[in-house]
């Protein structure tokens, strides 16, 4: 077998192991799903009237607000899922089995890539569940073509790969699950400081540049554009740039950390 085929085989084995863990112990995944679903229901049914009054120049109704917030919550779902990734990577590293993997003639980064692929699959599944809740309470896309749906899907996968690689690095530097969960907190905090719930234009002037150029806002605006036909502008490139940048950064960070002598 060529080394690429070996790498693929080892990665598949590691992925199977991670999926087996997720299937045997689904409570972590389900807990993480709770955050975006609760936020969706909270903002639509409790804060909905006030929030909808503030967007689209005022006077928008609740269904307009549902349309506004669902894309943001889909990306927040990814942020929430990767907190679980950081926790499970950190947990995994304390297990003796990882030491065993390190002394076996397997493709080294398969351990991490297995985590990443498993986590991206989990993110996509979670996004579908939260999306389904969105549709159930009235979210509809506006004239999105098949190509736009495909692009939206691609963006979600790319963005979750980006956040996952960074989360794997966070998991590797965390001595235990609690630390991992704390270190990964920005993954759920950043969407709160983005255009997920309210437009950036309604934020204080000094804060606007932060909200506008952090990774979540361009991704949210791009998703909105694809599904709802709003203006994407430079956000598309920003979103792809952020994602690719974070994939590369996270990959090198995580693999370098993993290559170091274990604690």
């Amino acid at each position, binding site marked *: *077998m060529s080394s690429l085929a*070996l790498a693929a*085989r*080892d990665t598949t*084995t590691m992925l*199977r*192991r991670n999926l*087996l*863990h997720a299937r*045997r*112990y689904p409570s972590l995944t389900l807990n993480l799903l709770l955050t975006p679903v609760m936020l969706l229901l909270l903002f639509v049914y409790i804060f909905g009237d006030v929030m909808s009054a503030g967007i689209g120049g005022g006077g928008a109704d609740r269904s307009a607000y549902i349309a506004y917030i669902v894309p943001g919550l889909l990306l927040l779902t990814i942020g929430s899922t990767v907190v679980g990734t950081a926790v499970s990577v950190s947990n995994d590293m304390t*297990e*003796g*089995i990882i*030491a*065993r*993997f*390190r*002394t*076996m*003639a*397997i493709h080294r980064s398969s351990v991490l890539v297995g985590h990443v692929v498993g986590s991206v699959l989990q993110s996509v599944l979670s996004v579908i569940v939260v999306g389904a809740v969105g549709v159930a309470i009235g979210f509809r896309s506006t004239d999105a073509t098949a190509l736009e749906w495909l692009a939206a899907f691609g963006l979600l996968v790319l963005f979750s790969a980006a956040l996952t690689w960074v989360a794997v690095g966070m998991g590797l530097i965390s001595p235990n699950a609690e630390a991992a969960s704390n270190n990964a907190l920005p993954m759920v905090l950043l969407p709160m400081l983005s255009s997920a719930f309210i437009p950036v234009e309604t934020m204080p002037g000094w804060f606007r540049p932060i909200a506008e150029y952090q990774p979540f806002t361009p991704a949210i605006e791009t998703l909105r554009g694809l599904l709802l036909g709003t203006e994407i502008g430079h956000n598309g490139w920003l979103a792809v740039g952020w994602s690719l940048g974070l994939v590369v950064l996270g990959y090198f960070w995580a693999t370098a950390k993993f290559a170091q*002598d*274990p604690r």
Partner: protein
Amino acid sequence: MTVTRASAPRAVQAATQAISATGLRKSYGDKTVLDGIDLTVPAGTVFALLGPNGAGKTTAVKILSTLITPGADSGEIRVGGHDLATDPQAIRAAIGVTGQFSAVDGLITGEENMLLMADLHHLSKREGRRVAAELLERFDLAEAAKKPASTYSGGMKRRLDIAMTLVGGPRIIFLDEPTTGLDPRSRHTMWGIIRELVADGVTVFLTTQYLEEADELADRIAVLNNGKIAAEGSAEELKRIVPGGHVKLRFTDPDAYRSAASALREAAPDEEALALQIPSDGSQRELRSILDWLDSAGVEADELTVHTPDLDDVFFALTASTVPAQNDQPKENAR
């Protein structure tokens, strides 16, 4: 791969030495864990690294098994004929490691752990299933195969651990304290397993803090203390290093003990046990002269035992700063 003329002697050496290391060093910050140790383990033999907690045994195993990098100033390290510095992946393909803390995945079943190993050794599905079933049967785990490994007892986890190590058929196996924390029955089971491995021609590198274990299993023993090899040899050779044989007198009456202790200045006292130790090789002639001497001194012990040197004596002699059996000055406070 082409074998150049220059590397030919290496290949010959590799055929006889399973493990060789010179000047193995490792330190963490200011703390030196391994201070330049030399090791050679001929193929097909059992080598035991014996030492107290914190002596550096686990660090040595971690380095030789490629888990952590050796200190920068270490000499050449070869395992299975491969250079650790340039070809760790080839070493990994040749070795199996069972660590001190069980390296099993507790979240999945014993059988799934075995199949995971089979997959990582790139066995076919059928071959993997066959090997897994065979090893689970051999290590008496077939019944528990479908249960999560986290529910296993200590002995079962250790057996699963070894079974997983054997999936790839390694020719060199590192066992880091394989029986620490096991009950006597599990320990004997583990010894049986290790003897079977040796019978198959596998090279075993073992660490232990139990002298009995090294004595039972190892062809050669190195005593590691404070990061240095304090002594090396077969169990018999090591026992010869230290004249640890003595006659032990035990008293029940503190007064009798004290008068005996003052009469027998050469004996090493043990206040707490009310015992005196007199150096002796245990021969009939020496015993008789000791008995005569005791009679003439008017000492009457409640119990007399003859202690011939064993690895314990070697161990304590090599790992402690003072050797109780040879200390003829009564200590004020033996604690």
